[in-house]
């Protein structure tokens, strides 16, 4: 479903992603882990056509991502790390905007939007402006929106960041069901190891732009010779604290942190 071959991404002389290769199979739930600034978001951006790799190839649903971006874009849905909703539109309008942009037919999207909004329990707020929503509600709306065009792959970049345990639990239950019922391939990043242990089939750990290890959770724990995934993660990536987001401008960070409040 996803195939990454020798991908490198450089920003000037800083190598954000350094020759990574991995595969994600159809219908799999795949966790992409790493400390802050390890290259997770940059990798996701390359997988989703927002950034061009400096070298290497990415295939998604059989399409070469750089050569055939439009076909690739039809195949996936994405929930970004930072909010990407229009606050001046209502929840329904945000969904409708997405549906039309993706060429979903009116008779299809009318029903689908209702179903999805019910699924994320926002149907009664469908006509409220997104600016009145809490962080968790926005996240749920973004997940619903990412599913609107029936993607075969769903990317989730830290979907549960800053959310309370109840909302997190909700979101993972939806995602798990979605994978079981509709066979959607899930590719996600997170810092919560218990979330990984709960739903992921396979895991890759990235640090300093390089993939350190990939395999099932059991394999990784075994190889690292530790008791839990969290211990394995720390022993592999070291215990020093990282700078946040090495490749994003200070200004963008300031805005993001404002939005998260």
């Amino acid at each position: 479903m996803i195939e990454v071959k020798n991908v490198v991404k450089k920003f000037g002389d800083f190598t954000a992603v350094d020759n990574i290769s991995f595969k994600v199979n159809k219908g799999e739930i795949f966790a992409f882990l790493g400390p802050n600034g390890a290259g997770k978001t940059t990798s996701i951006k390359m997988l989703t056509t927002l950034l061009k790799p400096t070298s290497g190839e990415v295939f998604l649903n059989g399409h070469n991502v750089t050569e055939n971006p439009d076909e690739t874009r039809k195949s996936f849905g994405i929930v970004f790390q930072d909010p990407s909703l229009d606050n001046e539109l209502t929840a329904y309008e945000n969904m409708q905007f997405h549906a039309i942009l993706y060429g979903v037919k009116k008779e299809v999207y009318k029903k689908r939007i209702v179903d999805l909004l019910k699924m994320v329990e926002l149907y009664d707020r469908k006509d409220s402006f997104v600016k009145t929503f809490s962080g968790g509600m926005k996240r749920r709306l973004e997940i619903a929106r990412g599913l609107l065009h029936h993607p075969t792959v769903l990317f989730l970049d830290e979907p549960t960041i800053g959310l309370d345990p109840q909302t997190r639990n909700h979101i993972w239950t939806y995602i798990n069901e979605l994978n079981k019922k509709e066979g959607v391939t899930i590719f996600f990043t997170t810092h919560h190891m218990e979330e990984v242990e709960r739903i992921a089939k396979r895991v890759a750990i990235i640090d300093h732009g390089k993939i350190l290890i990939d395999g099932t959770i059991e394999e990784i724990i075994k190889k690292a010779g530790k008791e839990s995934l969290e211990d394995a993660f720390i022993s592999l990536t070291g215990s020093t604290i990282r700078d946040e987001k090495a490749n994003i401008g200070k200004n963008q960070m300031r805005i993001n942190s404002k939005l998260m409040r």
Partner: protein
Amino acid sequence: MNAIYILWLRQLKRFIRKKASIVGAIGQPIIFLLAFGFGLSPVFAKAGAGNYIQFLAPGIIVMTVLFTSIFTGLEIIWDKQFGFLKETFVAPVPRYQILLGKVLGGATVAMAQGFLVFIITLFAGFRPVNWLSLPLAFLYIFLVAFLSSALGASIAARLEDMQGFPLIFNFVVQPLFYLSGAIFPLQNLPAALNFVTKINPFSYGVDGLRFAFSGVNIFSPFLSIAVLMGVSLIIIGFGVYQFKKVQL
């Protein structure tokens, strides 16, 4: 096509919902109309150039359209900062359609704003000589709106934040307006100023609109249309190129 439509509709919805900015955008034209219009009227008449309000009104309408369009074009920077541009850019829509949707949305909003100011100029004593040429006037207004909206969007494509905004406003937008013949006639100017006004596409917009409203013109009305359309095409081409290069 549907993508262009929904992008256009979004701009319109955002415009209608921001009542304060609609009113705010009328403030400047009113001040110009009152201060310049009535203030310079006696001098203008003494110089034998006729009724200044009659001369100024088309210029004020172009000013409104120009400023509003550039602002809506620059809204792309907000979309970038608030993350919404990512949502638009990962969609299976060619970048030229995204740009066209934005530009047409911005142009429509600016035309609406320009129409409001047109009504206000009527209260100030402005009278179109021939009401039948009103559709022609709207064609010129549309061309000016499209051109400036495309200009705003193309500039915004490569800007990361609003910090560059005063630079653009003071060194691009203001000169385009002041050197367009909106507030003074383009005849008998010093050579340098004459040259600058002739290469400013907005001079042709102002002149064309003045022709449609009052039948007075310096440039051929067809030349004006051709210049506005030609420059718009170049800027759209440049904008598409910029949009394709954007990485988020």
